């Protein structure tokens, strides 16, 4: 059975409309992407969709009450809310520096959550 699936690539601001053709669930062609990242994105979306998660954690003693954080690379899409839950219980003490590890190996993904802002 042949089916086609359409995706908006999120790897850069171009937002290519990429079409994957599948036969019996196997990818046979990918079209519409401007660069190899588009093909890689769509392949991942069909097998193991992942996202970089950006959010906040509490900070005490700093110039502002929250510090921005991100996953150092993308994590499985299904773990986004589990990761956000884990961040709720974190409380950092100022100063916070960009790159500080906030949670190592978040939710068993093997990926660290790191700080993305400097808080004095």
């Amino acid at each position: 059975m042949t089916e086609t699936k359409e995706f908006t690539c999120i790897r850069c601001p171009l937002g290519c409309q990429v079409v994957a053709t599948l036969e019996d669930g196997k990818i046979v062609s990918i079209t519409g992407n401007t660069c190899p990242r588009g093909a890689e994105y769509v392949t991942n979306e069909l097998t193991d969709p992942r996202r970089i998660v950006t959010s906040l954690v509490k900070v005490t003693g700093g110039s502002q009450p929250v510090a921005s954080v991100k996953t150092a690379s993308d994590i499985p899409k299904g773990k986004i809310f589990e990761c956000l839950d884990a961040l709720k219980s974190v409380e950092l003490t100022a100063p916070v520096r960009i790159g500080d590890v906030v949670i190592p190996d978040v939710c068993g993904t093997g990926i660290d959550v790191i700080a993305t802002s400097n808080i004095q």
Partner: protein
Amino acid sequence: MDKDLVIIGGGPAGLAAAVAAKEAGVNDLLILERDNKLGGILNQCIHNGFGLHTFKEELTGPEYAARFIVRAKELEIPYKLETMVVDISADGDAKIVTYMNREEGLVVVRAKAVILCMGCRERSRGALNIPGYRPAGIYTAGTAQRYVNIEGRMPGKEVVILGSGDIGLIMARRMTFEGAKVKLVAELMPYSGGLKRNIAQCLNDFDIPLLLSHTVVDIKGKERVEAVVIAEVDEKSKPIPGTEQEIKCDTLLLSCGLIPENELSNALGVEMNRVTNGPLVNESLETSVPGVFACGNVLHVHDLVDYVSEEATQAGKKAAEYLGKSEAVNAGGDKKIVIKAVDGVRYTVPSIIRLDHMEDRQVVRFRVGAVYKKVAIQVLAGDKEIMNLKKQALAPGEMEQVILRKSVLESIPDLSEVTVRVKTD
């Protein structure tokens, strides 16, 4: 106080302009910033997606800002925070910049050159004419973003977003991450004003509906928003009777466009572009007042900060060039080429090119006024086609650019006009 160069605003444009000017040899410069830190709006844009062009990696807003702040500090560029510029005027060749802060009170600076980097602000409820009471719970998306991401406060629990600009889309995901229920995004136009990838990763990922050709026609609630009424609109953007539906919510976020913040430019009397609401500039990003340059969102609203940095770098270099010459850079350069935006192209930045001052390659940025599929961007020098770029799709939400070559423009005798248009046939 006397200064060679004053830069108004310490956001992405001001930082990149200052770094470029200092690197080009301007030592007597000063950044004036109204917030309590450098970085501007990037500090509250905690999502990723910045810097792919500039740094070849995907950064969050604060990380992107930090790269430039570190560079500015390495270069020992002086700056003042919590400092508000209240006026600029011209006195002969000098520019008189008046600023205020708590330590110094009111201070007047005589500057040889000024770079305008004040950014833009959001279109507010008042400017949108939505009927109803004035209950609590109505915010622009950027205000809500500041509350959540900087101040750590949640503006509400059940949210409707009007307008599908990028800040609105980003806030739909952000509010969802913080535990709010985002019920829908309503967009007046038949297309979104935001980047396609933000619709994919901020709305579709979380099953948040985007209703195109819909608007808010009423806001219910007296003390606090209790519901909004949305309706479908016709092709003239008028609500269609009978299509109203009431959506229960406690918060309405507005993401309905950005307006360059040009009160100071107007006070100075620079000529404005009525389409962008920013100054008219030449190839050096210099306004109609010699020695006053503009870049970033105060000039025209950008979708990518990378392009702001690139544009501001150009402004910083050109300001340095202006300061390096004993006579105004505007002198000479009699050969002016006017860039005309027609057939779907709403404006271009710059809109004037002086061949004498043009670099080998000149970036011309613009936006289109509608959604187009399978068209071309055509550039004519006089009536000769010099460029024809095929485009799969064009949309008003996405900035486009063409690069003009000096050698090509010089090869056409008596050239006075370049036209940029969408070619649909």
